[in-house]
């Protein structure tokens, strides 16, 4: 079940909905500074991700999620922990675009 979870897909699809003109290949670009999303766009991005994945992004976590890769790691971590795995078991694999 967790192996079927592909956060990358959810993020790119949410991003292309919120900001259709933004390049979704730039995994390490800062969503705000580099891709030009403002706070309203980021809020909508978080909402779209919550809707599609069922994972709510907490207010206190949000400031540290500045790139697509950070978002992806966060979602993987949350998904794993909600699937009953402990945080320490989490694989550090990042950029798993095509899992």
């Amino acid at each position: 079940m967790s192996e079927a979870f592909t956060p990358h897909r959810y993020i790119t699809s949410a991003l292309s909905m919120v900001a259709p003109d933004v390049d979704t290949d730039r995994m390490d670009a800062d969503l705000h500074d580099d891709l030009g999303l403002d706070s309203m766009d980021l809020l909508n991005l978080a909402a779209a991700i919550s809707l599609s994945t069922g994972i709510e992004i907490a207010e206190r976590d949000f400031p540290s999620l500045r790139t697509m890769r950070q978002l992806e790691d966060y979602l993987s971590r949350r998904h794993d922990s909600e699937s009953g795995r402990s945080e320490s078991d989490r694989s550090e694999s990042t950029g798993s675009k095509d899992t």
Partner: protein
Amino acid sequence: MPDVREAPAATELVPFAMPSLGADMDAGTIVEWRITPGADVHRGDVVAVVQTDKSDLDIEVFVDGTVHELIVQPGVKVPVGTVLAMIEPRVVTKLGRAESAPSLPSPPLAALSPVALPPAALPPAAQTPSPPVGPPQPTPALAIPELHSPVLRHLAEQLQVDTSHLHGSGPGGRVTRDDIEHAAPRLSRREIRRVTPRARRLARVRGVDLRTVASVGTITGDVVLRATGSVDAGPAPAVVLKSQPDTGDAMRRAIARQMVKAWQEIPHFHVATRIDVGDAMNDLQRRNEGRVVAARILPAAVLVQAAARAAGDVSGVNGWWRDGAFEPATGVHVGIVVALRTGGLLAPVIHDANLKDLSSVMDDLRDLVTRARSGRLRASEVQGATFTITLLGEGEVETVTPIIHPPQVAILGLGAVINQPWVVGGSIEARPVVHATLAADHRAVDGRIGSQYLTALQHYLGGGTI
């Protein structure tokens, strides 16, 4: 010139005309009809998508009834006021029950539709519509209860809207200016027009009967001069578009036109101050804590609400400069400048923003900003602004000195909320500070009013009132 009002009509059809979707719009193109002849429509239904220079907009209808005929085809660019479709209204009886339209109009319908226009009398869609304008009918005595504002009463009389049948959208069911304007049949809105003093003077001098002047919207002096052949400029002819114009370029041109006009015509002055928003931001943070990100309220909502409340208190900045005089608005309808990532701006409107709680302001803001950027706005959402706010949002830019959107008389520019050294009780602290700049039209507003406005804004942002 035929008097179209005398043509016999089995049923009173209500014309649905190309609305004016901004002070700078003089024509629009139907991109798509969402209705077909015979379809039922209800007040507020989106019936068409219209392309303006700035964007595509969903256009609502403001009558309940049945679509009788679609007159203008998609792709045809027509001036504001052109009849696009005819609608057979459902008549509301005095008991409030809807009935199908009878062969003879009942009094309320007659009041709503002073012009019975048989479709045959309409100009062909592809030709410049300059329909004959009959002499205005004597205004029937209308029962207008519960309408306390003299400005609105006057407007209702002018547009021959019987407000006793209106469902007010304002607080407590109060009838607003928008309600009256929406209830007015589109053609009569065009027919019973505003006439500027200069136009009246020129008409008198040149012996022009203003009732025969075909014009969309306000009759200005230039319109009268055109009518007498003194100015060689007719209304723009309708153009059949072969392809969709580049909306980006068209938007740029529309912004250019509007800003040049504003900068050339409006004697701007500016007043500015820095406001410590530490308490307001702390309140907001407490409010957001524990919430999920999707439910958070952004600082922009706090700023917009405070700016709207201040405009409600200092009414001298809230309204329009029209016909050489300031016309105060009865509600505070705040235009929010939304920057599009692809370039350009839109200014959707939060209606009655001063009366809304913070969550509602945030909901409206989010909805409008999101749809301005990646969806589509409704016509009613870009109309009727009484005051505008531009927010720089995040980032490090401290000050913006904006240009007024005519016919409004003021615009507030808010810089980014930035931590600054601030004197608190005799010592210096780092506090989040916003730089507020009010641009005002010196024809309508004096520095004293501008200062009062910023003081009120300071009060709403500094007092921890959220």
